[in-house]
């Protein structure tokens, strides 16, 4: 099958064909050449002062530091013995998180695979910065082996190109939510190939009121909460939308006042409510009032922080997800009522005042289909090689095992 390559823009490409990439010899997880390439990329990105304007690029560069990769590697020592990359991975990056494509590629490389990465057709400066850095590291002469492992491309929505690359790859990684997934899945992958999909997810935050009041560092918590929510317009899968308060009525009332005041004070300096967001929030309130009711709109802080308090948890609560600072609040004495609504849509649970192990046990012992990540408030967006319930290294590599026969 041939495709019209004129439709494809190559941002990072060594010149070898996609078919040749298919035949690249896969590597073991955390192969030396990959780690050394990524740490060179990290240095390259951190070297430029102008990159400081993009905090997400700096975060990415920090992730790729040698020391960090070495520490990640320690979690996969067993894999290095008996795992090997599957071959060619085809990544479809989302159109509204500029740096996501780079993390996806890092997961593909660290698990030992060649990567064809389709970045969004929307032009982001961050994409160019990272691709330029990759090109400059690849052309230094010190990482020639990696050239055939990386192809970063851009093309407008095109079934022909997508179908071609889908048929070619061993694993397809689809970001961008439910509708992108169903669109891309119209193009089949080879019989032994499979998809790793990042669907639309819903996330929640659980707070023990008494513990929140006791910790005292309200500004820091507000800043962390802001980073989980407003920083990505509360539209990342990991951004909490349902806030669950646990404790006595008195503690909860006190904690709410302090918490939201602090969040508002921080957000006011850093976030602007667009007209569409204001209307979305009002619409969400009306929908909640009609469908869930009785609800109460706590709008003591204008349209920046929209809080809808509810007194029952309907199972379709995720339908009332609204970006840009719209929170549904529910209070209870323990987490029991949550077990009735959590399904496989639920991704991240951020917490204040809980022991994460305790929450993990709670998920397991209740046999919940959702909640893949339990992280402290402020860490919801941190990239991890375990994401959305997938261990990316283990999923993107295959296991080769051998059995010793009885001596003859």
């Amino acid at each position, binding site marked *: 099958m041939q495709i019209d390559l004129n439709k494809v823009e190559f941002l990072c490409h060594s010149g070898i064909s996609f078919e040749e990439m298919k035949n690249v010899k896969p590597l073991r997880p955390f192969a030396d050449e990959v780690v050394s390439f990524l740490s060179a990329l990290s240095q390259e990105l951190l070297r430029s002062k102008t990159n400081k304007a993009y905090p997400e690029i700096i975060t990415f560069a920090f992730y790729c530091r040698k020391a960090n990769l070495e520490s990640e590697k320690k979690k996969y020592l067993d894999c290095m013995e008996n795992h090997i990359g599957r071959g060619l991975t085809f990544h479809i990056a*989302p159109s*509204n998180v500029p740096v996501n494509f780079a993390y996806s590629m890092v997961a593909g490389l660290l698990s030992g695979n060649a990567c064809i990465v389709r970045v969004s057709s929307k032009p982001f400066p961050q994409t160019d910065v990272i691709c330029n850095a990759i090109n400059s590291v690849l052309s230094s002469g010190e990482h020639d082996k990696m050239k055939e492992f990386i192809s970063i491309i851009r093309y407008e929505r095109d079934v022909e190109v997508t179908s071609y690359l889908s048929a070619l790859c061993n694993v397809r990684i689809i970001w961008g939510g439910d509708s*992108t997934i169903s669109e891309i899945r119209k193009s089949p992958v080879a019989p032994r190939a499979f998809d790793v999909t990042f669907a639309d997810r819903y996330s929640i935050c659980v707070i023990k009121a008494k513990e929140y009041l006791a910790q005292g560092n309200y500004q820091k918590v507000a800043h962390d909460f802001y980073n989980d929510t407003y920083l990505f*317009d509360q*539209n990342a*899968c990991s951004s909490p939308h349902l806030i669950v308060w646990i404790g006595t009525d008195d503690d909860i009332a006190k904690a709410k006042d302090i918490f939201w005041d602090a969040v508002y004070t921080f957000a006011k300096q850093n976030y602007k409510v667009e*007209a569409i967001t204001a209307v979305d929030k009002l619409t969400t309130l009306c929908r909640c009032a*009609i469908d869930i009711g009785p*609800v109460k709109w706590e709008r003591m802080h204008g349209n920046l922080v929209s809080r809808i308090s509810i007194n029952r948890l309907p199972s379709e609560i995720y339908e009332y997800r609204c*970006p840009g600072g719209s929170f549904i609040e529910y209070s209870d004495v323990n987490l029991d009522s949550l077990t009735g609504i959590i399904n496989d849509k639920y991704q991240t649970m951020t917490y204040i005042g809980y022991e994460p192990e305790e929450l993990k046990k709670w998920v397991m012992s209740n046999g919940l289909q959702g909640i893949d990540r339990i992280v402290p408030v402020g860490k919801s967006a941190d990239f991890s090689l375990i994401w959305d319930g997938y261990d990316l290294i283990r999923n993107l590599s295959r296991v080769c095992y051998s059995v010793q026969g009885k001596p003859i």
Partner: protein
Amino acid sequence: MVNYEEILNMPPYSLDKSKKHEFLTEQLSILTRHHYYNCPEYRKIIDAFGFDVNCIKSYCDIPFLPVRLFKEYDLLSVPREDVVKTMTSSGTTGQKVSKIYLDKETSSNQTKTLVKIVSSYIGAKRLPMIVIDTSAVLKDRNMFSARGAGILGFSVFARDRIFALDENMELDIDGLVQFLRKYEGEDILLFGFTYMIWQHFYNKLKELDLSLDLSRGVMIHGGGWKKLQEHAISPAGFKEALHHVCGINRVYDYYGMVEQTGTVYIECECGHLHSSVFSDVIIRRSSDFGIAETGEKGIIEVVSVLPKSYPGHVLLTEDEGIIIGEDDCPCGRKGKYFRITGRINNAEIRGCSDTYADRFK
């Protein structure tokens, strides 16, 4: 209850700021209570706001419903069997449309109000009317789209009517020439949607280098400037261009929506959209929905005394605009005058899912 017979006798631009405030507060308070007790969904929303319907100091304090709600819910304040007409907004295929349920009273008041307002511009006499659209939009009489509703609404001013476009949106030149010959020397009403007038009427006449004599024409057009702005056509440029191809001098833009049919806002001789006594616009800040200053851009809230069969008397639109002034337009009309700056922007939303923002396109 609202005494429509009495209030619809008021001249449409006759009340000054304080009298209009008093009038609207009284009428809209009655309507708010009516909807509160007759539309369960409306009641739940009002309760979520913690708003007391029995103690309304100003109509500006009444919670507004986002117009998008009419796309998601069937909102009625009368028994369903009283509905005589369901109006829908024009949406492209696949989009949800607003559904507005009208009983006999509300429907009839819409027509009466439209007549009051429009005849204050074009006179009480009915005129020969050219609709710059195709008759095909009226085919399904049970589901009135905004386009069809506009045409039918304004057709009450017609004593004879032709459609200027055929089903393929081609200009029917012969039909137009005959119609103009028949009514030579008389005032002629032209009605259509701004962009369609430009695309299928103006452009065609220009392309054919044909000049029609519409020097006695009065054109009323609406539907928004978004597409024309993309072509860099200003309201003044629009008028000038039309004058150039057909000699027309009186061209009035209007702002209105299917959710508040009847209480239209028509452009005056000075180029300002005016609110009549039956309705008002309030500009809201997106930061806190506070009322914007004169001259400050914000989200447009519209209130109207007509909606009784559905809770649409106080609505937040998805348009943005600016109040230019109140009671002091050189044209002499009382009330606020304003302009529309466009639709509220589809913000670039960050996040994981690609398509979220598309939902609102």
